[in-house]
């Protein structure tokens, strides 16, 4: 029973812009956020956070807090040191990585502002928060380490004194040593053009709209944790391991989750503190963070210094690339934090073919909030650096930035293409996407306008930015993850339960938090089994119903989980086929599944549906001899390769050279994410991703002062763009199916965020090139732009 034999697409759901099932409750307030939950006898947890970036804890006295109204318990890190465990890092990227303990609550030393120091449980949230003021903590200052490069110098003050160094790891990839290409030394020696640049990926904060919240109920047979998390399955496994609780005694539920963007891809201190607290008092406990708590303690993203060198011929053909990263881990290693730059390591070569590549990354500890995955996780950083320096190469040689890319990119006829990193790019058509983007953007007209404005000395200059990107999606082949020392696999699972009335329950191991899996998965199942879209219910995010899965991040859910779902549906059909044959009194081999019905081949009449078979199985009065009375099926799919979406984004900005103000003028995004299940959802993902990338380019930065205080601890200071800061984006798609994937899909969650940051900054720099400017530090705020202009004017 193969896909080629069956033609199950009866309902035409896949590819249709279905309005989302999820919306009905979300637009009417019938939501199940973790914070909504109230349980009998539930206590509220408040956490006292360190005001110091680095200090020894001399004394914590919770005695007075215990006497405050409503307070039931108060405890410090030292009080729970024996049971709180250490937060996990699942990606120790090298054998000799320096991996310090990460207690959920600091025990004897705090290493970043906002680190948890003590906790109070009280009958109301207000009482719990009030009582924090009664906790006395005595600190002794330690030197604060903030600058990554200073941290690596000999004799530097240490974040973890016991470790003897601030360097966590050095990870190297060399195409010459790996045998996937040549060595960069010879490539650079003979090159006519060598460019060296330093770029800075500023520190960002994922800033999901729903603050993190966790409820722990220790009163049942299983300890149940509700959490605003992207990773209920990984969380369950790690909770069991960290707290030494039998795994079958832990249940994790991710109810409605309000965004993540990697920021909820974490096992958090707050989850562990709530878990420990609930066990300590034997009552349900809830913790919901304030926005300020969130900004200071939920993991941050990016914060990487990129030193990049590119060698090329005089015709602009790239000969080699050398990348040295200094990546800020913050004070501790996050769940996948050390691996984030490594994900990027395979993407600096981007869509280009060149023979030699070397990548080296040092992970560094500082007295800041720990960093980890943020939308794109390593790939936006890589794409930014290569796309910025490709523009520099174009300028160096007097070429149009599109032309220099054309001279280096992989031709559509060259796929599958093995990159200099040894990855096999599955498919793509960079020419088609770029041609379409150029057409939609009216590239020539904008260039002409730019020339005119330059000639007239207009104080408002026009800049045009190009970004041609690819990314590796569909995380991930388990063997590859193993070779990179990642602590888990990359498979995904789906189960299909066929109910007696023919309705379908799908259980997925993915864990959506805004992506619309309920809708897209229903579309897929409708086509695969010939059932109505509305007759499919998608269940997820509760380890009691969905006991297995690797959750949602890395644009993996459809690219990997979608295959598992199709395979599970195939198995349902395989089970139903002999039942249908029995009911039709024919040989199973004579049946084909078309338009949602098993029919005798060549006979368009009659037939049996999945619902007919499920009712027959439910009654079980008349089944073939030996047949199991069950149509349910499960599949686990481990991808054999990543998928490689790509696209071309073009951005035009107007830069006021007198004020430094950057105004978005137009933005075109042509993405190729393979086949599309729901174009409405895909377009929404592109919109949101592009805007998050624009936010990095123009608006957002997490800033610490010299003492390690986060200056951007509210939405007043950490400036997410509003509708008024943005413009409409013109989107279109080219469609190169993912080969070997039954749906041909590639993944779209991170594409926009990967592509847009370099497109915007390239545009800003392009506007200012006549002034001798070739870089603006992100974010390109009026101040940063204005200062760059003043410095050039002074020079």
């Amino acid at each position, binding site marked *: 029973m193969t896909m080629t034999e069956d033609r199950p697409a009866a309902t035409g759901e896949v590819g249709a*812009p279905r*309005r*989302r099932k*999820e*919306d*009905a409750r*979300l*637009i*009417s*307030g*019938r*939501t199940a*956020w973790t*914070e*909504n939950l109230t349980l009998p006898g539930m206590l509220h947890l408040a956490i006292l956070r360190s005001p110091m970036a680095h200090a020894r804890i001399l004394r914590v006295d919770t005695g007075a807090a215990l006497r405050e109204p409503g307070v039931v318990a108060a405890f410090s890190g030292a009080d729970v040191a024996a049971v709180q465990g250490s937060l996990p890092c699942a990606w120790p990227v090298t054998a000799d990585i320096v991996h310090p303990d990460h207690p959920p609550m600091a025990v004897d030393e705090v290493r970043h502002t906002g680190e948890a120091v003590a906790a109070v449980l009280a009958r109301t*949230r*207000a009482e719990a928060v009030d009582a924090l003021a009664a906790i006395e903590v005595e600190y002794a200052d330690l030197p604060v380490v903030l600058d990554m490069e200073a941290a690596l110098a000999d004799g530097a003050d240490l974040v973890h004194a016991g470790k003897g160094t601030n360097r966590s790891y050095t990870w190297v990839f060399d195409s010459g040593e790996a045998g996937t290409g040549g060595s960069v030394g010879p490539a650079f020696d003979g090159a006519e053009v060598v460019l060296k640049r330093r770029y800075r990926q500023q520190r960002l904060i994922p*800033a*999901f*709209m*729903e*603050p993190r919240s966790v409820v722990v109920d220790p009163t049942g047979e299983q300890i149940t944790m509700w959490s605003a998390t992207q990773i209920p399955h990984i969380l369950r496994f790690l909770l069991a391991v960290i707290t030494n609780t039998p795994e079958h005694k832990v249940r994790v539920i991710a109810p*409605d*989750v*309000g*965004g993540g*963007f990697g920021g909820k891809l974490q096992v958090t201190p707050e989850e562990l503190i709530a878990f420990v607290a609930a066990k300590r008092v034997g009552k349900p406990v809830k913790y919901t963070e*304030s*926005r*300020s708590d969130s900004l200071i303690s939920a993991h941050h993203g990016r914060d990487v210094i990129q030193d990049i060198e590119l060698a090329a011929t005089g015709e602009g053909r790239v000969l080699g690339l050398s990348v040295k990263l200094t990546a800020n881990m913050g004070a501790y290693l996050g769940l996948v934090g050390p691996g984030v730059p490594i994900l990027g390591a395979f993407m600096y070569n981007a869509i280009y073919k060149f023979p030699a590549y070397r990548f080296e990354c040092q992970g560094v500890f500082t007295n800041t909030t720990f960093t980890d995955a943020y939308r794109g996780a390593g790939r936006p950083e890589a794409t930014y650096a290569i796309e910025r320096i490709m523009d520099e190469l174009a300028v160096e040689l007097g070429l149009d930035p599109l032309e220099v890319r054309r001279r280096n990119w992989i031709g559509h006829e060259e796929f599958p293409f093995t990159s200099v990193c040894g990855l096999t790019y599955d498919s793509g058509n960079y020419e088609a996407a770029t041609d379409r983007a150029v057409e939609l953007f009216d590239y020539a007209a904008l260039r002409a306008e730019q020339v005119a404005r330059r000639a007239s000395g207009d104080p408002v200059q026009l800049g045009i930015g190009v970004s041609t990107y690819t990314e590796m999606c569909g995380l991930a082949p388990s063997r590859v993850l193993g070779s990179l020392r990642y602590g888990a696999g990359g498979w995904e699972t789906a189960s299909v339960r066929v109910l007696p009335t023919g309705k379908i329950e799908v259980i997925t191991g993915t864990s959506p*938090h*805004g*992506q*619309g899996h309920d809708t897209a998965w229903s579309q897929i199942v409708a086509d695969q089994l010939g059932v109505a879209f509305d007759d499919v219910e998608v269940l997820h995010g509760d380890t009691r119903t969905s006991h297995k899965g690797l959750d949602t991040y890395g644009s993996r859910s459809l690219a990997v989980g979608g295959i598992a779902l199709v395979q599970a549906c195939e198995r349902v059909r395989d089970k139903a086929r002999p039942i249908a044959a029995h009911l039709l009194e024919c040989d199973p081999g004579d049946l084909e599944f078309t338009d949602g019905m098993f029919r005798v081949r060549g006979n368009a009449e009659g037939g049996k549906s999945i619902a007919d078979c499920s009712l027959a199985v439910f009654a079980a009065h008349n089944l073939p001899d030996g047949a199991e009375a069950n149509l349910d099926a499960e599949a686990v799919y481990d991808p054999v390769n990543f998928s490689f979406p790509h696209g071309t984004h073009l951005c035009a900005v107007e830069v006021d050279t007198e004020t430094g103000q950057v105004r978005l003028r137009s933005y075109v995004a042509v993405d190729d994410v393979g086949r599309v299940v729901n174009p*409405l*959802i895909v*377009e*929404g*993902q592109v*919109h*949101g*991703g*592009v*805007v*998050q990338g624009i936010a990095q380019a123009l608006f957002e930065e997490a800033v610490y002062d010299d003492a390690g205080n986060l200056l951007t601890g*509210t*939405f*007043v200071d950490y400036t*997410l763009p*509003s*509708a*008024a800061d*943005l413009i*409409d*984006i013109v989107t279109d798609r080219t469609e190169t199916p993912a080969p070997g994937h039954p749906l041909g899909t590639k993944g779209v969650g991170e594409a926009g965020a990967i592509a847009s940051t370099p497109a915007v900054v390239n545009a800003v720099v392009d506007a200012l090139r006549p002034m001798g400017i070739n870089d603006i530090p992100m974010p390109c705020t009026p101040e940063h732009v204005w200062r760059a202009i003043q410095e050039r004017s002074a020079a």
Partner: protein
Amino acid sequence: MTRISVTVDGVRYDDDVEPRTLLVHHLRERLGKVGTVVGCDTSNCGACTVLMTDADGTRVGVKSCSVLAVQADGREVTTIEGLAGADGGLHPVQRAFHERHALQCGYCTPGMIMAAVDLIAANPDPTDAEIREGLEGNLCRCTGYQNIVCAVRDAAAATRAGSGAGDVVPQPVS
């Protein structure tokens, strides 16, 4: 404790509240109106936006994290849970958000929809620029706002057409 009487989504509630209690906490924790959410605590994100009558009885959008419950005494409050018609029919703004895929995770959505209702009441025929300016106080991290702007434009048109609770279906996305 202070005695207050607030009509929320058509039902009058009499409660004793601490003077410091915020309206949003009163709605969520005392009245169980958890459809209205808290996003930022600093009145930047607008996720908690509800409609409240002012001294003249006019319904205006307020950020319920920036209103004390005692300030709502004697007022009528409309939350996302009370926006649909009595027959359960969606409000034009709700319907347009669904049609235009103007939400993803949905956390900002209650506030965004209530702010849009307020905006359309004040300006029945807003330009896209006016919609963007009008929603400046409501943050969304998922959508990039583009489909929200479309939805508000559609909902305004549907409202102008005099549809009340949703006789006019916004144009589907092409």
